[in-house]
């Protein structure tokens, strides 16, 4: 008798719940982000207010700084994540510790890892995060905005000849962006050729002699220790490098470019402006320089 009752109960529970879940699949209200790029994506989609926890590295937009922290992006604290009682945890594949992700799942959390290792991955990540929040439309809007930024850059630099570029992200020793890195793709889109593209590593320690031999036409220093004015000095003794000779050594101090998130369109425009400044001249000065600079800066 009790068994029948139990089965009946069970059946009614399943009957009530399965369709219920399918219909009203509750959209996540408390989200924990395990990476700065994910936090930025959520804010860009307009869901910043649903974030219940972010990493200590999440500093953009400014509101993100005020959110509760759950540890840094390599080492999120399992306890802190669980304590936020999130109904969705979003991390980054290859960065978020898979063992920790598994443990969170075991504790009943819904964990999604997005991949952001190249530009199409970043777009796909935006799309899937938007889908998780049930607002595919917002996702498409954001992607369209980024695509428009990319198109604008492409159109502006179209007439210019490509320039070889060294992108530095650290000194002592010199660390540069290699191939297999979304920044390498950004450099390419911005009309540059990364001199360290042949390297298999995404980041690599480049000996000075390789820089001299590759003779970059533009040197961009991003990340730590980049400061206007200092960069030119740093390279001053290697005047055979065209970038040094022609004064195309720049500092780019925003970490926008280093972050595989929704601001990459903006970063691309800024990068292209450094590589091909003549293509971004203001309309008045542009007339002057259009034919002789933007269209024919051949080495």
């Amino acid at each position, binding site marked *: 008798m009790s068994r029948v009752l139990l089965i009946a109960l069970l059946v009614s529970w399943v009957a009530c719940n399965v369709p219920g879940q399918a219909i009203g699949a509750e959209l996540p209200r408390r989200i924990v982000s395990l990476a700065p790029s994910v936090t930025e994506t959520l804010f860009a989609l307009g869901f910043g207010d649903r974030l219940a926890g972010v990493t200590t590295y999440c500093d953009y937009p400014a509101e993100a700084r005020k959110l509760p922290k759950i540890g840094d992006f390599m080492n999120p604290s399992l306890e802190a994540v669980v304590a936020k009682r999130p109904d969705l945890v979003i991390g980054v594949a290859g960065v978020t510790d898979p063992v920790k992700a598994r443990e969170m799942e075991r504790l009943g959390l819904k964990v999604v890892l997005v991949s952001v290792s190249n530009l199409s991955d970043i777009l796909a990540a935006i799309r899937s995060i938007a889908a998780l929040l049930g607002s595919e439309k917002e996702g498409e809007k954001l992607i369209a905005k980024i695509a428009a930024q990319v198109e604008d850059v492409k159109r502006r630099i179209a007439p210019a000849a490509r320039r070889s570029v060294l992108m530095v992200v650290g000194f002592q020793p010199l660390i540069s962006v290699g191939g297999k890195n979304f920044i390498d793709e950004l450099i390419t889109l911005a009309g540059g050729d990364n001199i360290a593209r042949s390297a298999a590593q995404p980041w690599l320690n480049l000996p000075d002699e390789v820089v*001299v*031999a590759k003779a970059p036409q533009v040197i961009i220093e991003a990340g730590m220790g980049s400061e206007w004015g200092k960069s030119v000095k740093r390279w001053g003794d290697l005047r055979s490098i065209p970038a040094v000779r022609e004064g195309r050594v720049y500092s780019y101090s925003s970490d926008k470019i280093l972050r595989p998130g929704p601001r990459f369109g903006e970063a691309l425009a800024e990068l292209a402006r450094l590589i091909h400044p003549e293509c971004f001249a203001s309309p008045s000065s542009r007339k002057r320089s259009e034919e002789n600079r933007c269209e024919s800066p051949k080495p």
Partner: protein
Amino acid sequence: MKVLNRRKMIQVNGVLFLLLILSVIGCSLLGPVPLDLSRAFENLFAPEPNAEILFRTRLPRVLLGIAIGGGMAACGVVLQALLRNPLACPQMLGVSGGASLGGILGLIFFPNWILPIGGGLLGEISWVPLAAFLGALLSMVLVYRFSLFHGRLHPYHLLLAGVIFNSFIAAIIMFLNSIVDFYQAQSLLFWLMGSLSTRAYLTVAFIWIYVLLGFLWLWAKGLSLNLITLGEETAMQLGVEIGSVQRQIFVASSLMIGAMVSVSGMIGFVGLMIPHVMRLIVGSDHRLLLPASFLAGGIFLGWADTLARLLLAPAEVPVGIITAFFGGPFFLFLLYREGRKKVAL
């Protein structure tokens, strides 16, 4: 105590010195990019790629590598004797930890400060190695204070104080590493791994002066070191002023290590392995062992760094990986051969 065999001294060091000169030339000619020598020499002072590669990037680097390899090996020899511990190495003294912490603080707080030398006429030096050297000096004083036992430098205490001080510093470094941002943390890590990358002849000259003076100071204590390895009491009975010798060796090697780590970070294994290898080859008379180790250490690190530039070209491998990877098995092989020799006897 055996009389120093002058002929052996001249032969061994002569051969090693010749090899060192050949290594400077060889290491300067080899690299990830091919070099047109005639163009390099024709354009000595012109902005020409071949000249810049040879004289501005490779040569200072090779010269720095040789000074640091030699200095590390020489410090390893005297520390192994002073502490009477075969595992003693320059990284053990606590000074390297202090230098690393100083350098890290420099990298975090003033990565762009530059100190002009001689009003900028002699070039400029980054504050990072200066901060590192300051850290080395401070830690030298601290470790020295902690190693005093009844008013005398005690080898056992020195070893313990150095090791514990280093682990304490390592904890601080890991803490700093975990509070700075991600990219800064990566940079700190690369700096800690050590690199001989330099273009400043001024820095190279400073290191050479430091290392050479330190080396001569240590070499002058060669005979006393021979006696100390026999045991403190024996040394004292034979007239060695043991307290003074220990203090001098500690100060000289600390200054050398501090300067070296400040510029190149922690390049391990040279200071541990080269003294043992050379002891197996030339014997343990410090008057011979010290210069031989200096020369061999220079040769070894020079080639290790060349390999570091070549192995994964265009990327550079941290030179500490090369020293351990190629030095370790070679050392084990020598150890094995030595073991068999004794059995055969």
